[in-house]
């Protein structure tokens, strides 16, 4: 629409993209409260909660972008289907995006950029994942037989296709978090990095304990009352253990890294569980927010993606954000000291600790990142202050939306300052981003 302020063709000045608010459903453990819910169901629930919070019923939002990591082939148009099932206007366009665990953050970056360029005035970014309702794929052998069968015309051709079927072809391929090129699970990959950086069990357990304590405290002070809408009877993240202790965490048996020379340190307590959930973020231009009397929590400043060669063992699978970070900071002329909040996604406690160790290492920063010295220290009192994935759980594509909405609210509460987000992803990828208080 050419008469919308700032949205006209030929707009070249970059304007601010602001986070207006967010909504997520409480995250459930896989096989728990949302065992019977599909990705579409959960994404609709997250969207409808957002619509209710901000009164967006029947509104044509500029665009909705979301995605899922574990996705059925029938969900090829997941986000658009969710929009059609939501209280938004059916004339709201949508697209799917898939970038492993960085999916949610990347949708925020993409829509924020469109807003900055004046292509849209408002957008909803987010993601959803269900480890409970994961697709199960037929074997490659069965798949080929079925395809040939569909093309067969004569009984003879049909018989020939079926006759190639072997009993082993009937076993389905269960979903895994294994890397296609290495066959190693994400946990085993991280175990290599954990060992390489000498991250101790105690340090990992301490980080996990802080995550639970911080998330529980955030609930206690009502932090999530305008960030979350209950779903299917769940009113809090099911994974949260408000009563956990370092002693309890210390008792858990290691689950990853058993085959390494060093002692295994990664447990179910300091690794994220498989989780179901959805999260969305409402973004807009300043004009859009003002015209609709909507709050402006924070600006989406900038973002950077990186990838590493983990296949040949050059770098750890989840270390890509470490490389993205100096590029983002340099471009914006900022240092770690310039930030008041750090949101480093806790895929595993040791992922966070390996990244921090890498940024503090002069040798690593010189040789791998090409810097003059260490990138810097992160003040641990500013890290994941309202809890992160170890406590909340990690429905892969939903994590970015959770982090962006929570960080934007924390910045709005403080009234000043900046926040830094770091999210690692499968495939040796990572995305980092900066939010700024208004």
């Amino acid at each position, binding site marked *: 629409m050419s008469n919308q302020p700032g949205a006209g063709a030929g707009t070249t000045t970059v304007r601010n993209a602001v986070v207006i608010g967010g909504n997520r459903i409480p995250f459930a453990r896989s096989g728990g409260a949302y065992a019977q819910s599909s990705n579409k169901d959960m994404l609709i*629930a997250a969207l*409808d*909660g957002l*619509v*209710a*919070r*901000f*009164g967006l*019923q*029947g509104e044509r939002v500029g665009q909705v972008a979301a995605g899922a990591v574990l996705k059925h082939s029938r969900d090829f148009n997941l986000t658009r289907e969710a929009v059609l099932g939501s*209280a938004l206007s059916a004339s709201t366009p949508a697209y799917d995006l898939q970038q492993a665990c960085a999916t949610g953050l990347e949708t925020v970056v993409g829509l924020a950029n469109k807003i900055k360029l004046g292509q849209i005035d408002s957008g909803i970014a987010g993601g959803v994942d269900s480890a409970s309702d994961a697709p199960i794929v037929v074997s490659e052998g069965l798949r080929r037989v079925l395809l040939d069968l569909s093309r067969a015309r004569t009984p003879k051709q049909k018989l020939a296709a079926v006759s190639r079927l072997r009993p082993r072809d009937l076993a389905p391929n269960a979903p895994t978090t294994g890397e296609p090129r290495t066959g190693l699970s994400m946990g085993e990959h991280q175990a290599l990095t954990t060992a390489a950086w000498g991250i101790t069990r105690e340090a990992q357990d301490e980080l996990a304990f802080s995550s639970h304590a911080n998330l529980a405290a955030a609930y206690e002070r*009502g932090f*999530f*009352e*305008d960030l*979350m*809408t*209950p*779903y*299917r009877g769940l*009113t809090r993240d099911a994974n949260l253990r408000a009563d956990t202790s370092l002693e309890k965490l210390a008792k858990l048996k290691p689950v990853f890294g058993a085959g390494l020379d060093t002692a295994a340190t990664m447990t179910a307590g300091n690794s994220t569980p498989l989780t179901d959930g959805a999260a969305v973020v409402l973004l807009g231009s300043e004009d859009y927010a003002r015209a609709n*009397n*909507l*709050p402006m929590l924070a600006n989406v400043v900038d973002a950077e993606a990186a990838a590493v060669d983990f296949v040949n063992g050059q770098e750890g699978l989840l270390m890509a954000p470490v490389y993205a970070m100096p590029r983002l900071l340099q471009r914006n002329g900022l240092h770690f000291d310039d930030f008041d909040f750090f949101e480093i996604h806790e895929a595993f406690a040791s992922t966070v600790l390996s990244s921090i160790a890498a940024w503090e290492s002069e040798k690593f920063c010189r040789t791998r990142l090409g810097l003059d010295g260490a990138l810097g220290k992160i003040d641990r009192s500013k890290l994941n202050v309202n809890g992160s994935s170890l406590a909340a759980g990690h429905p892969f594509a939903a994590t970015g939306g959770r982090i962006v909405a929570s960080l934007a609210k924390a910045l709005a509460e403080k009234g000043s300052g900046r926040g830094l987000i770091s999210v690692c992803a499968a495939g040796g990828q990572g995305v980092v981003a900066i939010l700024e208080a208004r």
Partner: protein
Amino acid sequence: MADTYLGLVNTPLPGKLAKTLGLPRPAVLRRYTPGDPLVPGPVLVLGSGPGADALADALLGWDQDVRRHLRPGEKLGAVIMALDAVSRPEDLGAPLLELGPAVRALLPGGRVVSLARPAEEAGDPATAAARQGVDGAVRSVAKELRAGATANGIVLLDGAAADSPGALGALRFLLSGRSAYVDGQFLRVSAVPAPMEPADAGAPLAGRTAVVTGAARGIGAKIAEVLHRDGAKVVVVDVPAAGEQLAAVANRIGGTALQIDITAPDAAARILDHVKERHGALDIFVHNAGITRDKLLANMDPARWNAVIAVNISSQLRINDELLASPVFSPEGRIISLASTSGIAGNRGQSNYAASKAGVIGMVRATAAALAGSGRTINAVAPGFIETDMTAKMPMLTREAARRLSSLQQGGQPVDVAETIAFLASGPGGGINGQVIRVCGQNLVGA
């Protein structure tokens, strides 16, 4: 829960059987739908004096067929008895004896409305007796009416004219389908100086912003829907745990959902901040949130007692303090609190609940005195037996008895409570302040 008996008795054969056996025959009530005529037939205005003439003129102005005498064979939509000039008990005879045959001519869903002045303002005992007499006569007529017809009264306070905006607003409400389950009640109206828009113009609450607490389900959700139907922007509030249902209500009515526990110390501030940011000003606040924790007093524990007091009355007192001190709350602001017939009559096993609901009535009267003449009003609505999830959980026989114990011989619907609240929230409801309006079908409990 569906009232199976009500459905059955309104079909031909079972209906005939019920009549033969002398069983209760509850009628399907005439409820309001936008665009409906005000009353189902001509309006007969009885009585003499300035009140009768003024109301007859007003009805003509509303395009109603007005009669001053009963015509043989003609069916009536409503009868208005102007008794505002009575000064001796003997004055009641003529109009009431004329009402007798008129009642026979009432159409289903018809209305009887009396107009009188308050006994306590009478200058002499004979006038007071006559005025108080109206009360007893109308309540009795209400109990004699059948087929969903009701009888209610308007009481003109402080010398208010019969055609003052508040009185006419109350009259339209009582004649319309909005008052379907209000029966045997008296609306006491004072003279309101400001002119007011008609009550059932399409959207009487257009441009207003309302907050409804406890809006995730039941009566609260219906209040939100009716305020929205009448044109208001509605902010629905409920505890975070009810957020899923609350979001569904908000999305159904194009409102916004606020997940707040109203007992939190900052609840009022957060509600006011939200309304200020999104809508600028707040016009209507409906205190609907309430809980029950029933136990005989002998078995009552502090947790049950304190929770009910905290939610049902303490939170309202705290919110009202902040509301009335806030510039966000409109100079014509309306506060409506949910009371209960339990708070009027008491109820076995509900000492905590009845204390809280009687407390609401006390709060409303005291606050109203402070608001008098300010443009703002506060009132309470006391529902009787209403068909909700809560009453569906009652034992079957108790529920059946509770339904038939009212003059309308049935439970009310959540919409009946909501309609009365919407009326009190509207401009024409502005003549009413500090009242407790019962929406109970003239239930015997607390009568």
